[in-house]
């Protein structure tokens, strides 16, 4: 009834090729973005901003980056944490060593550095595939962990190896309050998601998907595997690098290499798999699942007034969270984004299903 495309005629190619061809989708997305920009800043609490929304948005950006590589191009990577770390530490070094640089430029340059490193570690993908590639990217993870823990130049010779981000100043305006931080992150994530969505619809995205589905066939129809794979590594690392810089500057404020260890890589890979491979929406859903659910599980007993010890709550959180991951993967192996798509299909038929 509500979600029906009957009567929506496309009279031009532009109308047919637009980002969201169905009116309802368009309205929905615009409404969500408007809500996020115009309503949330006024109603959300500081806790909601700092502990839930900001980490969710930043990790969603990283998940979009990883999804481009794993979901669209089919190159399994376990080095996401490393590329986040590259972004974080290059942003730190740029900001500390060139104090007058605009922070926006710093973040973009951080993405560029991550891109360079990502391409270098992407080179093995031209020769090896699947699990072997995953292991090769794991090397990136350990190398970067070692680099930032051992080479004190990168941490500005900090005695403890922990570095602390300078204030975020853009065009003379310093971002301090949670609302400002949230809006800043939201704006970057929106732009990032838009860019990613368009890239994946275009020629380059199609070359990634062709490589993913069957690289030999892709080569036969004229797609250069080197260009496709390395561009996927480059774009992916760029997003992940920016996410890393945001994570460090806005979420953590001060951090050590442990913040970007192999667990972060796994966490992002889980987000992408649970959210849905090859889907921008899936990256958001996966990030929401991994970031928000444990916090909800952790607070639910207290809020419902069930007296449990802190340790017990923590154990329950792990068990329920693990069980839910298994549950969702069994119910829909193609991820939460697929569940969403099925929901939309059903809604189309409603109220007269077959």
């Amino acid at each position, binding site marked *: 009834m509500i979600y029906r495309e009957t009567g929506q005629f496309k009279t031009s190619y532009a109308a047919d090729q637009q980002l969201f061809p169905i009116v309802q989708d368009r309205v929905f997305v615009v409404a969500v973005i408007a809500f996020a920009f115009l309503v949330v800043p006024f109603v959300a*609490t*500081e*806790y*909601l901003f*700092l*502990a*839930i929304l900001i*980490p969710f948005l930043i990790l969603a950006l990283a998940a979009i980056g990883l999804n481009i590589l794993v979901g669209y191009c089919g190159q399994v990577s376990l080095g996401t944490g490393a590329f986040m770390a590259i972004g974080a530490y290059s942003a730190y070094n740029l900001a*500390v060593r060139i104090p007058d640089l605009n922070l926006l430029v710093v973040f973009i340059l951080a993405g560029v550095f991550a891109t360079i490193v990502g391409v270098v570690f992407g080179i093995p993908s031209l020769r090896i595939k699947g699990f072997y590639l995953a292991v090769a990217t794991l090397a990136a993870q350990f190398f970067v962990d070692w680099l930032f*823990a051992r080479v004190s130049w990168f941490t*500005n010779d900090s*005695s*403890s*190896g*922990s570095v*602390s*981000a*300078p*204030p975020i100043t853009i065009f003379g305006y310093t971002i*301090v309050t949670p609302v400002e931080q949230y809006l800043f992150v939201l704006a970057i994530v929106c732009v990032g998601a838009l860019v990613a969505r368009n890239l994946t619809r275009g020629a380059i995205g199609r070359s990634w998907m062709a490589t993913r589905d069957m690289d030999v066939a892709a080569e036969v129809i004229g797609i250069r595997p080197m260009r496709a794979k390395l561009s996927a590594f480059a774009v992916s690392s760029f997003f992940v690098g920016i996410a890393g810089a945001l994570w460090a500057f806005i*979420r*953590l*404020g*001060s*951090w*050590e290499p*442990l*913040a970007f*260890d192999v667990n972060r890589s796994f966490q992002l890979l889980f987000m992408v798999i649970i959210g849905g491979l090859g889907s921008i929406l899936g990256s958001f859903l996966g990030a929401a699942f991994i970031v928000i659910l444990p*916090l*909800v599980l*952790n*607070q*639910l007993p*207290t*809020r*419902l007034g069930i007296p449990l*010890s*802190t*340790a017990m*709550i*923590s*154990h329950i959180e792990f068990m329920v969270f693990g069980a839910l991951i298994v549950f969702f993967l069994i119910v829909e192996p193609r991820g939460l984004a697929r569940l969403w798509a099925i929901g939309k299909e059903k809604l189309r038929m409603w109220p007269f299903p077959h």
Partner: protein
Amino acid sequence: MKLTPNGIRTKAAALALAVAGALAGAQDVAAQSKEIFIPVLVYRTGAYAPNGVPWADGFVDYLKLVNERDGGVNGVKIAFEECETGYATDRGVECYERLKSRHGVAVNPLSTGITYALTDKVPGDKIVLFSTGYGRADSIEGSVFGWNFPLLGTYWDAADMLVQQVKKKGPLKGKKIALVYHDSPYGKEPIRLLEERAKLEGFQLILLPVTHPGVEQKATWLQIRQQRPDFVFLWGWGVMNSTSIKEAIAVSYPRLQMYGVWWSSAEPDVLPAEDAAKGYNGIALGHSSEHEFPVHKDMVKYLYDKGKGTAKGKDEVGSVLYNRGMISAMLTIESIKAAQGKYGKRPVNGEEVRWGAEHLSLDAGKIKSLGFGDMVQPLKTSCHDHAGVHRGRIHTWDGHQWSYTSDWLEADQKVIRPIVETSAKAYAAEKKITPRDCSKES
């Protein structure tokens, strides 16, 4: 009840409501103006739980004791809530944000990593950050780190005292000291001071990092077997400590030549090896496993005999880390009392507690009257010294219990102070902080 599709839908809706309620609930609980709220960041699960649990029990028990025995601080009840951090920095920050909405006055994160992360946040939120015996070593400089209080001593104090102790056995020139450390801000903190000391004394410092969580140390101890350092300093936490001691036994490195920092010399560290750990030393943060002082008796009388204790049993009362948790809580409470002394006997806020912590003055008599005997050395904080006291003594494990084996040691501020000042100045420059002028403070 048969689960009809409708029933499922109702249940799903109810669950969604509950979830939404849980999230919204984070903002409620407005300031109970009749109480003082203290957020309690703990870790009772994970690789650091063996050490995190007794500390948390001691901390919470002392807060309970203040409420039960004294009826609060000058009549103002203490409210608190635990939050599990798992020793992870991001979870710790989340806990801090979660409990911040209840207008806490002071936080004790029990993690140097979390302390680093919160150092940037506390001045804005006006919450005092106590890091009793841990945290940033340079944060004793109150003109830059106005809200950090590494009371009782820092890692640079600990490292300095350990060097003084081993120096008693003969000049250190040409000797080798290995530092086996947890590869995190916590473990790396003493390196700077030890490097300085190595230059002064002429010993060689061997740095051996152990990655989190520290259960894999074969390679580290193989290096120790090859290089045979004259002394090993252990800077571990959680399961890493007991693993180190077991590995030392495996490569038969003499325990007598091993010295742990105060976080590496408690019962959970040596008990797994029991008798074999005999002779292992540690620097005590002023206290060891005393359990006969009035405060311990009060714990049993007011809490454990009434079934209100936090620990599983009253045997835990008086263990090294339990005592430390208790002392951390006591110093927090005393800062609140100091604040009440100036601002009136009412629920004080964070800013007032900060003043209290900066003007904390506990002499031996006062500490004794609190029931702590000589577990805490007389301390006096000031704008330039947020630690208050820099003393410790060595205690040694005899196979069954800890006992003191040295006199009081005092960290040499002539060595430490210049490093503190350089480091604090660098932090101020990086963060664009203008240091306070301490001479203008009352």
